[in-house]
Structure formats: C-alpha cells, structure tokens
C-alpha cells in the first residue's frame, strides 16, 4: 500500500478533457502550483487536457498557477467565490470576452457543497444567499419560520491539492492557513492528487494530528521546495518559469 508516485507528470496523468478538477488553495496559500504547472506542461506537449471545469475559491493571480492554466486556454468554466485578485487580468479578459464561463458561489456555500460531495449528502439547506441574485432558480424552504436555500453537492473527477506532509497511506497534514479548501477537495474528488513538501514512513505522522485520513487520497507526489504563488507574483513570474 503505497500511494506515492514518482513525479508530477505521473501524478496528473489521469486528468482528461472535459473533467471537473478541484484545485485547492485560497489565493496563493495552499495552491498546488507545481501540480498545476505539470498539467500545463502536458497540455503544451499534447493538447490535452482541455475544456476543464475548475473549482477554486479564486480565479488566479498574475501569470502562474491557476492564472496560467486559464491563460493556456485549458479552462472552459470556473466555479468560484471571488474571481478578483491583485492581478486578475487573465480571467477578467477572458470572462469579459465571453470566452470562459463563471459559476459564482458564496464562499461558505462553496465549502459546504464540496464537503457534501465528499460526505454523500446530495443537497442541503443554507441561509446564505436567500433573497439575493445568487439564489435565483434555487428551491427555498422555511424551517422553524426562517427561509433557506437548497444547494447541491459538488464533486470532481480529480482534485489537485497541496499539503505539508504525507505518509505512504496518504494521510495528510497541512501548514497553517494553507489548509483551507484542500481537505474538503480530497473528500469530494474521485482522484485526489496531492503534492507535499515531504513524505514520511507510516507512523511518521501523529495519528491525532492527521487532518486528511488517507482514505480520501489517491496519489501523493513529493515537491520538496514548492513555489509560493505570492513570491512568484512579486517577482512578476510567468509560467513557464525562467530557469
């Protein structure tokens, strides 16, 4: 039982045209930059995968990571809560040109829909968005005299996730607020693909402190010294990165 794979290319090999791919991170924190770049590499070499539906809190920043994935033309639709950033030019231009679809979801509803997808809950009610444009067309029901909006689960074919450390069973721990959506996306994806700074042997993680139990993880790849999106953008980097 060993979920580690040799390299980034192998890790993302199962992602195909038209798939729904969840990508962890909140802005740059917890963004699996190297996995995203490996997917772009494959697209540049083979023309695939394309027509992806991507689920992320944001829409990328600058010209690396998710922004680079969008810029490469691989993304058909984005499901997110906040497609703005310090430098959102890539998404903004495509969106205003009508060349990328957007499903805007309140952040807490996005998190809960993903968690529901992972937990086998096909629908749930939330007070969030009641009476707003984002509730249009959704069933509304009163409970205890208060109105709630019904929301559906969100699942994915694959998730690209960044964690701090894994054991070979795929048990994961994260780093600070880089946790964010990552544990939820592991739950909701058929194939959770995780980049970690280090892989430890079984027993190398405190069983009390594991955030994502290995049952939610399918592939783990080591990226010893991952890029931080914020640093890349402050350096005005664009993918492919200069050596």
């Amino acid at each position, binding site marked *: 039982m060993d979920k580690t794979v040799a390299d980034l290319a192998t890790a993302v090999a199962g992602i195909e045209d038209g798939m729904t791919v969840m990508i962890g991170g909140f802005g740059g924190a917890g963004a699996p930059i190297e996995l995203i770049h490996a997917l772009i590499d494959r697209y540049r070499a083979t023309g695939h995968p394309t027509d992806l539906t991507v689920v992320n809190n944001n829409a990328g920043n600058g010209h690396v990571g998710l922004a680079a994935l969008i810029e490469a033309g691989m993304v058909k639709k984005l499901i997110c809560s906040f497609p703005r950033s310090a430098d959102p030019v890539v998404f903004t231009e495509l969106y205003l040109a009508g060349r990328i679809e957007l499903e805007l979801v309140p952040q807490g509803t996005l998190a809960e829909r993903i968690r529901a*997808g992972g*937990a086998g809950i096909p629908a749930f009610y939330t007070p969030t968005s009641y009476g707003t444009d984002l509730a249009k067309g959704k069933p509304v029901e009163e409970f205890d005299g208060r109105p709630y909006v019904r929301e559906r689960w969100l699942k994915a074919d694959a998730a690209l996730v960044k964690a701090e450390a894994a054991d070979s*069973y795929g*048990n994961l721990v994260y780093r600070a607020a880089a946790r964010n959506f990552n544990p939820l996306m592991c739950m909701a994806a058929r194939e959770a693909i995780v980049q970690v700074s280090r892989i430890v042997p*079984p027993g190398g993680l405190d*069983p009390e402190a*594991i955030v994502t139990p290995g*049952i*939610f993880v399918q592939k783990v790849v080591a990226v010893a010294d991952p890029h931080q999106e914020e640093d890349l953008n402050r350096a005005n980097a664009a993918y492919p990165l200069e050596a």
Partner: protein
Amino acid sequence: MDKLSNNQIAWRAAQDIADGAYVNLGIGFPEKVAQFQPAGREAIFHTENGILNFGEAPPPGQEDWDIINAGKKAVTIRPGTAFFHHADSFAMVRGGHLDVAILGAYEVAETGDLANWSTGPKGVPAVGGAMDLVHGAKRVAVITEHVTKDGKPKLVKRCSLPLTGVACVTRVYTSLAVIDIEGGRFVLREKLPTLSLEALQAVTGAELLVPGPVADLIVPEV
C-alpha cells in the same frame, strides 16, 4: 448437509478483498474476516467510531478503552493509523470512500434488500451504523449461514423483517454458496462441490439463476 464453518465463510469473503482496499466489517461475525486477509494483500480497516487502519486485538489486560472498534472491543493502532470524529467517519461511509463493507444478515432478498437490524417490534430497537454502512461502500457483501437455525431460507424473494436498506447487497457468502445479486435476481457463482443445484435451490427462498459456470466452493480448514 455439508456446510462451511463461520471461519470458512469469513475466509472465503476475505479472498475477494483486493490489496489496498478500505474495508468496514460489521460488528460480530463479520469481524472474523480480518483474520483471513490473504498474505501479500493489505486491507485497511475502518471503524465507524473514528479509526482508520487499526490493528488486531491487544493481549488481554493490555486493552486501552479509548482504542476500540464499533463493537466496543479493544483494538490496537498501527503505523499509519488515523483518528477522526464521527461526522468525518460517516463521510467516509456515506461518501462512497469504502471499497467493501461486509455485514451479517437476518435476511437478504433477491432485490438486494437487506434485513439485519431488527427481528421485530419486541424488545429495545437498536440500529447503530448498519443503515449507513449499506449505503456508500462500493461493494456491500453479506456473510451468513444459508438457512436459519430452524432451517428456513435466509435468502428470500422479499424480506419479511424490517429493512436495513433497499437494493444494497451485491454479493452473499453463505455456508453453502457464493451468490451475486444482479438485476434484482440471485445469480449462483460458487457452491459446495458435494451439493447439487437442486438441493441448494431447495434451501433458497428465491430462484437461483445460473447464467454461467458455477465454481466449486472449496475452502481450507481454518
């Protein structure tokens, strides 16, 4: 009539668990399956009360009563164990993350319906995680005696006892046979070599389809 012992039924069920499979074993008889995992194949066991990848029972006197399984028996941790709370645990169950759940049964219907939580209105009802486990695991299998102590079929056309779940069981390992449930019908896959199809049908409460070869159900003494 020749029949398999409980250990032998458990052994047979264990042979179908793939390397790396995540497995939940119902409390009681199904717990035996863990003992017979084939060499070279690692199963990772889940217990509803919040442990993944637990190990076998500790020696008597060395129990830690905070490390127990769903049947409240002491187990042990292993390198790679993870703890989690009940909502996460049932997210694993309901969310389709388990590869196999192996459960006991009072009755299994040809429709895949399972009755294994209540023998009727008297006494104190108790369901535990049974109704959750029948949903979500990629494969829900049952291990059971082929007939009740009174000799009545446990594999039936429709369950007479309160249901645990509807159309959930896909394979049944009995003391006499291995039977799949496909398209709402029992499909015979293996039977004891000493047993005729007619004799097996006679103790089964619904028709056994035989669309393909029936293998001999041969199990070592265990």
